[in-house]
């Protein structure tokens, strides 16, 4: 790699649908000479039907939205990383965001801050990603970039500061005034490639001076040098302003705002300049890994090339030549021929090809140093795996994977879909450890499991879109569990002597609730009442029993079984007999031990404009939710609650309709709790019906 690390930018472009993300990405690739012709996103009929970026990709034969596209601008290397557009909190979103060092938030000059911009912004906030804003579509009628800036401040709580003002709006939009250099910038030529710098038009001069003062005011919070210059009325240089604004941007205390129209090729080059000047290089960002030898304590990664190698596989892509694994290197460097270890399973891997992705082709390279993004070929791994030098035991993501809480049956509609579906499922479970799949032995249906309704919906949608797998889904089901509430004894004899070899085994002992673990088996038999060779069979029998609890056929957890007595027969006792005896003993003890059903309780956080707070609380309250509290954050308000998952089905739709689509929620598993009696009875009834139906 030819450049110093401070000239590398790993950025994402996020936007609301239809605010011009695809067009902007396309223009960026054009101006950085990665592609050589521009195509319009709009359909040929000119009606304005916006094509999907996926269709555009197909038509162009390139992957604009590939996991990481590389381009160059003013001697800087820019990696544009695809950020998933969906709202649900999943591990995948987390991964993409942690690979970014900075982002461009694209907003529509007419539509302003829309609901998805809010979502995207919240994700950025969560991962502390510094961003700059681009107000696009200044050529559209009704465009008003200053209203968008106000919304950025009010709706998103950003300290949004314009670094430009537009020269003309709507049809008269010609260019922008740069408030740092105090020059007017026009974009001439067929594709706006000729940037013409002139003096500021007279009629805009006053506004420009006033806005520049506001900019300096905002910047002086972050630079003593600038403050001094202002106070002592010295000359304020461009560098002073840029360095102050950069300081503010890196700490997310300023959001610099740029404007233009990507479609009309206006304002894209200054935006790229800003990416190089204002957004952080990998060095500016602190990255942490977890030390597996030390109870997952966070360790700061230094980014030095001499240190041992640490990288994260953030995306897998199925290419023509097999699996392509995108990695971001955080420390050390990776060269062709190196041996690395996948810290998830300890497998050693020899690195064959190391490549870098361009918009439409790949390039073989020798090494990927820290801070860079590259791809590896033919490596079998899952997305989210950490690669390290042999001897290190670090991981970029916590190894803790929560158990899925919801499941859904999916049925392929035809043979082709069946094949595609299994391909898709194979891929998804590699990408996302919280997504699981299996075939139900009894119904022979394929079941997918995940962390929430939306989580599964996203995958079903991806199956349709990316794999053209036509599937029908069943009703989502909550992953209930069974457990016991008190100690109970059992003493069961399994006896069968009806012709042929007999079966005999007696198992006695007790079972009791245990916290924090699924199953504990303890053997307290003395004197060989059950011969040692059959103890394992007893354990097997108990383990078989907990897979489907006797009460409602849900898995049993939190149970300890102790055996302390038994009997055997010299001829009729066998392994099989003791497995059967243990199962009988389990059933006997279980009903005496006060079995109950537990359900997953979700920690739900709803972010809503303050005016809908009451409505949101009402909705949560209706769903057997306990509202923990509400947090006022200026114009927005977060309501936190604990709600049973079973009550959360369809919540997103209800929430949308009662808040004009302006509230959204995240949820994650909080704990398992006993279901109220009335609900348990209902569950029992349903189970009964299903049994009869079978």
């Amino acid at each position, binding site marked *: 790699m030819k450049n110093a690390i401070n000239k590398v930018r790993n950025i994402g472009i996020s936007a609301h649908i239809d605010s011009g993300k695809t067009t902007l990405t396309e223009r960026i690739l054009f101006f950085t000479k990665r592609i050589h012709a521009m195509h319009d996103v709009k359909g040929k009929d000119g009606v304005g039907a916006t094509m999907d970026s996926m269709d555009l990709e197909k038509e162009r034969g390139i992957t604009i939205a590939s996991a990481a596209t590389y381009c160059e601008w003013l001697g800087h290397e820019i990696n544009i990383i695809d950020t998933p557009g969906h709202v649900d909190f999943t591990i995948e979103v987390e991964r993409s965001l942690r690979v970014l060092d900075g982002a461009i938030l694209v907003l529509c000059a007419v539509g302003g801050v829309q609901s998805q911009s809010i979502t995207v912004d919240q994700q950025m906030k969560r991962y502390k990603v510094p961003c700059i804003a681009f107000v696009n579509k200044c050529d559209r009628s009704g465009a008003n970039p200053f209203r968008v800036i106000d919304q950025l401040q009010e709706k998103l709580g950003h300290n949004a500061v314009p670094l430009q003002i537009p020269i003309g709006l709507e049809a008269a939009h010609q260019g922008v005034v740069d408030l740092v250099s105090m020059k007017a910038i026009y974009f001439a030529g067929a594709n706006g490639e000729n940037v013409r710098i002139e003096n500021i038009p007279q009629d805009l001069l006053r506004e420009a001076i006033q806005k520049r003062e506001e900019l300096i005011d905002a910047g002086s919070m972050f630079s003593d040098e600038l403050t001094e210059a202002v106070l002592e009325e010295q000359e304020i240089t461009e560098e002073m302003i840029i360095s102050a604004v950069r300081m503010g941007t890196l700490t997310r205390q300023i959001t610099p705002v740029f404007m233009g129209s990507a479609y009309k090729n206006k304002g894209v080059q200054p935006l790229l300049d800003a990416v190089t000047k204002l957004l952080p290089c990998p060095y500016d960002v602190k990255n942490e890994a977890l030390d597996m030898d030390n109870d997952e304590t966070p360790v700061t990664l230094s980014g030095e090339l001499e240190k041992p190698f640490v990288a994260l596989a953030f995306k897998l892509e199925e290419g023509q030549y097999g699996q392509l694994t995108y990695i971001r290197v955080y420390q050390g460097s990776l060269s062709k021929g190196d041996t690395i270890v996948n810290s998830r399973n300890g497998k050693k891997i020899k690195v064959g090809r190391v490549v870098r992705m361009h918009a439409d082709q790949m390039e073989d390279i020798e090494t990927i140093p820290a801070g860079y993004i590259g791809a590896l070929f033919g490596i079998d791994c899952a997305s989210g795996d950490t690669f390290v030098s042999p001897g290190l035991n670090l991981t970029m993501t916590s190894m803790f994977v929560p158990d899925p809480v919801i499941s859904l049956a999916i049925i392929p509609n035809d043979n082709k879909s069946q094949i595609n579906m299994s391909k898709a499922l194979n891929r998804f479970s590699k990408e996302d450890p919280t997504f699981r799949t299996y075939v139900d032995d009894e119904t022979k249906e394929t079941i997918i499991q995940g962390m929430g309704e939306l989580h599964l919906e996203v995958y079903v949608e991806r199956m349709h879109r990316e794999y053209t797998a036509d599937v029908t889904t069943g009703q989502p089901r909550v992953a209930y569990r069974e457990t016991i509430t008190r100690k109970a004894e059992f003493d069961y004899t399994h006896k069968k002597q009806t012709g042929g070899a007999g079966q005999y085994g007696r198992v006695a002992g007790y079972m009791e609730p245990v916290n924090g673990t699924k199953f504990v088996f303890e053997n307290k038999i003395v004197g060989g009442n059950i011969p040692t060779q059959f103890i394992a069979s007893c354990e097997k029998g108990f383990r078989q029993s907990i897979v489907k609890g006797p009460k409602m056929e849900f898995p049993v957890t939190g149970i300890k079984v102790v055996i302390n007595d038994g009997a055997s027969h010299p001829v009729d006792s066998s392994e099989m007999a003791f497995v059967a005896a243990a199962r009988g003993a389990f059933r006997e003890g279980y009903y005496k031990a006060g079995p109950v059903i537990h359900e997953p309780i979700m920690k739900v956080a709803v972010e809503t404009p303050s005016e809908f707070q009451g409505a949101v609380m*009402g909705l949560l309250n209706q769903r057997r939710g306990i509202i*923990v*509290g509400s947090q*006022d954050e200026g114009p927005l308000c977060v309501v936190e609650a604990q709600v049973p998952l079973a009550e959360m089905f369809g919540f997103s739709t209800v929430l949308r309709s009662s808040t004009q689509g302006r509230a959204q929620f995240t949820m994650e598993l909080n704990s398992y709790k006993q279901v109220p009696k009335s609900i348990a009875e209902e569950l029992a009834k349903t189970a009964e019906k299903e049994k009869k139906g079978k």
Partner: protein
Amino acid sequence: MMMLKKELILKNPLRFIGKETQDILSEGGFGAVLARAGVGKTALLVQLALHTLLKGKYVLHISLDDPVNKISLWYKEVFRHLTQSYDAKNTNKLWEDLLPHRFIMTFKVEGFSVPKLEERLTDLKEQNIFSPQMVLIDGFHFNDTARTSLSDLKRLAKNHSLHVWFSVKTYRHEKSGPGGMPSSLLDVSDLFDIVIQLQPEGKKIHVMTLKGGPADSDRPALFLDPATMLVKDII
């Protein structure tokens, strides 16, 4: 579990300042806990709240500084210390029972106003979601304009039949007026029925009643244990 509840109720921190019988504040009453930063205002407020919760009443905790998670953690910690010597299974169950009786509301200091609180409160009550008997306000700014807000709050407290406890941050350099009352509270002290100050003394924290305490002064001095921030039993 009933036993556990009863025993815990007996541990009422305020029993020691001679207010063991009934709720010490009537409807519309104000109480204040004064201390310098980090001495244990929130911990004492949370103890008061837990005590009220144990009696089956509803508590609204308003914080102007900390996020919901942090407040929630305070409750867990204080509850854990309180119930340390009891069987975990019972205490877990009790905790689950208390949870629905508590509601945490946080505001940014500048975003907090009495009309806003009233609006929220009415909303909660009308929808039958939550109706508190006790309100804690942690982090309220006692500045020049406080009197107006406090008077409004008093009216609100009376209307909604609840009493309010405040935490008041004091400063080392702050001069105290008559009765040891800090200057920030002097102008409004007439609105308060009880004022308790926490004063670090060596390794202990002295709990002093500045206003509304018992008349007899022979009561033993009362201390907080800095490790658990709980009121120490008098030996």
